């Protein structure tokens, strides 16, 4: 029997956004990465286009991170040298992008100077050819100074710079405009604030295809379902023509997964939860695969094994399938 399948027709698409810039384009990257452009719900190849695969950005921090030792041991030869760490992520673990986080800039922590941070950025830019995402320490005042300096130092590289938030977006937006970078617009698990922030940023004339949404996901078991539904709703909004929800989405999967108790406690403490190492890897991988189902475009991750599983998952999700 020939069955009439039910295909949805959508009016619009998710924005397509390019990260990085090659020499010809004014940067120094050996490749660029394109995300977004979907004209259907996640991986509905049977009724729309999924032109670009979701990508994995692996995290590098400017100072030794305070991570679970079992996670950190994958990087023990490199975690004091961000450039080498980034190279290992790309060459050994298959990272599509590097997410460089300046935890060391925090005035309440190591309080690294803006100049030192810019030097770290240069080190990483020279070590790898993939595009970079950079993110600050969370202190607004310091991050604004830092991101201005970083935007200028890497002018033309088309970085993805975070985080612009509802009450602190102007400085970073202006820096991205002047030096031709893209921006992460971060909203606290709230679709209205998400939209509002995109409006505010675009009113400063940053083009829509230079904005990425960070919906502030929760980790598996810690409110991830709120993010799941917000992402499903924003994809539906984008497809129905809401331009202010049409940006690609970035999810800080590694950060959220590895701050949960379930990823970290030992089997001695919780024998009924099984071994820590595979539990931790899966806590991150399952967070990632759930977010892929909801429409994530960029996954920021940590554990090499979780990255490997996620990339395999993406390969399978990207297999074309049609009813024709």
């Amino acid at each position, binding site marked *: 029997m020939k069955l009439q399948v039910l295909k949805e027709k959508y009016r619009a698409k998710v924005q397509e956004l390019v990260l990085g810039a090659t020499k010809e384009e004014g940067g120094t990257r050996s490749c660029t990465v394109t995300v977004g452009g979907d004209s259907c719900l996640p991986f509905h190849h049977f009724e729309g286009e999924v032109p670009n695969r979701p990508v994995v950005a692996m995290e590098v921090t400017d100072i030794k991170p305070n991570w679970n030792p079992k996670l950190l041991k994958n990087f023990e030869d490199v975690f004091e040298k961000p450039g080498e760490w980034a190279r290992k992520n790309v060459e050994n673990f298959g990272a599509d992008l590097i997410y460089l986080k300046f935890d060391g800039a925090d005035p309440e922590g190591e309080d690294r100077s803006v100049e030192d941070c810019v030097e770290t950025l240069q080190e990483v830019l020279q070590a790898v050819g993939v595009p970079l995402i950079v993110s600050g320490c969370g202190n607004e005042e310091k991050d604004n100074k830092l991101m201005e300096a970083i935007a200028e130092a890497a002018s033309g590289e088309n970085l993805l710079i975070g985080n612009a938030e509802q009450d602190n977006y102007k400085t970073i937006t202006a820096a991205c405009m002047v030096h031709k970078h893209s921006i992460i617009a971060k909203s606290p698990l709230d679709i209205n604030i998400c939209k509002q922030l995109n409006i505010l940023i675009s009113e400063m004339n940053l083009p829509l295809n230079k904005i990425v949404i960070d919906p502030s996901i929760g980790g598996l078991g810690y409110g991830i379902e709120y993010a799941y539904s917000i992402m499903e709703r924003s994809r539906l909004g984008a497809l129905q023509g809401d331009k202010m929800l049409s940006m690609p989405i970035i999810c800080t999967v590694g950060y959220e997964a590895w*701050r949960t108790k379930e990823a970290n406690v030992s089997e001695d403490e919780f024998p009924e939860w099984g071994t820590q190492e595979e539990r931790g*890897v899966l806590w991150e991988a399952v967070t990632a695969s759930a977010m892929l189902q909801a429409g994530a475009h960029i996954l920021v991750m940590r554990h090499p094994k979780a990255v490997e599983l996620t990339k395999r998952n993406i390969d399978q999700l990207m297999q074309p399938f049609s009813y024709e």
Partner: protein
Amino acid sequence: MGLTGLEIYKQLPKKNCGECGHPTCLAFAMSLANGKANLEACPYVSEEAREALDSAAAPPIAKIIVGRDENAYELGDETELFRHDRKFYHETAVALELKDTLSKEELENCLQKIKGLKFTRVGLEYKVQFIAVKNETDEVDVFAKTVEYVAGKTKLPLVLLSENPAAMEQALKIAGKDKPLIYAANEENFEKMTALAQENDCPLAVKAEGLGELAELVEKITKAGHKQLVLDPGSRSISRAIADFTQIRRLAIKKKFRPFGYPIISFCTETDPLAEINQAVAYISKYASIVVLKTLEKEHLLPLLTWRQNLYTDPQVPIRVEEKLNEIGEVNENSPVYVTTNFSLTYYSVEGEVGASRIPSYIISVDTDGLSVLTAYADGKFEADKIAKVIKKVGVEEKVKHRNIVIPGGVAVLKGKLEEESGWNVLVGPREASGIPSYAKSKFA
């Protein structure tokens, strides 16, 4: 997607006799449309009208029950494509596969492991639902023996995996009374399998290669009179499974396409257990009502069951705990007292860490309508006067001699006002629950 009151009214006898308890047929029709009345109440409705109304009023996806009595598990009866439109109702059943090639000792080991698969997280118990026994040998007797052994050792409902009707018949002689899911009827065997399912009053999975073939086979089986069905469109790759499952769900809900109005069974094909879990995440997210997998390890299943619980949470209702004084460990009159909100993620994070500090303590869970600390504070639901009242209300002052209370670091600003209102000495704890063990050791050890 049910009928409107007027559509139902057209099918009623329009006698306005009032015997159904409603003054008029129209009022009765309106009650039917709202699900507040049963057609049985009308003594005069014609057979044709009853059939038309029954099928139109039936849920878009049938509720199918596997297992009996306290172990019965409900599948299907879903009404949404997206959880944010209302909610998903019946959590995907996780079925763990055991092959009939396993020796007795191996089976025993596996069953022991399965017994241990119970997890307590955030006050909820996560479990696996079914054991799927697979007739890998294609031998009738070996399958029957394996089913007999497994059925004797577990209370979990079974899924019987064999497309050989002779093997299924033998297995059902042993396990049929407990309402296992029969897997599967296919194009060749469906007459025999349907007869077996009917004789034993068991749900039957229907397997076909592709959606069109599946719809056709389902129609043949329902025509033969069996309507407890589960669907397998043969999809074994993630990409195709998402497409097929989405089509089945869409056609059932948006078009009321009857052949697809049943729950879906999915099979993981990955051999690496970690990749298998990732595959299962896609199936659970995209409408599978049963997922069959092979790993039996706790560290693999806990993340998967957590995702299932998250996905099936009611999006309109924040999950919360009761407002009360909670005792963690063997408390006494010197035990520390913590206060937090009643959002269950918040409360259980705090409870877990207070437990991990190994210092018996009290935790007061203040009713903030299920909001987390900072959200509740911003919303005026976690303020000094309210917390002070709750301190009095829960009776902690009769339980401890001291007057020290620890508040979350995120709401340190409450300190002064709360001391004034409650008369307690307020200690500012860590911002994140994870900081509690080291905080507790430095303050209370």
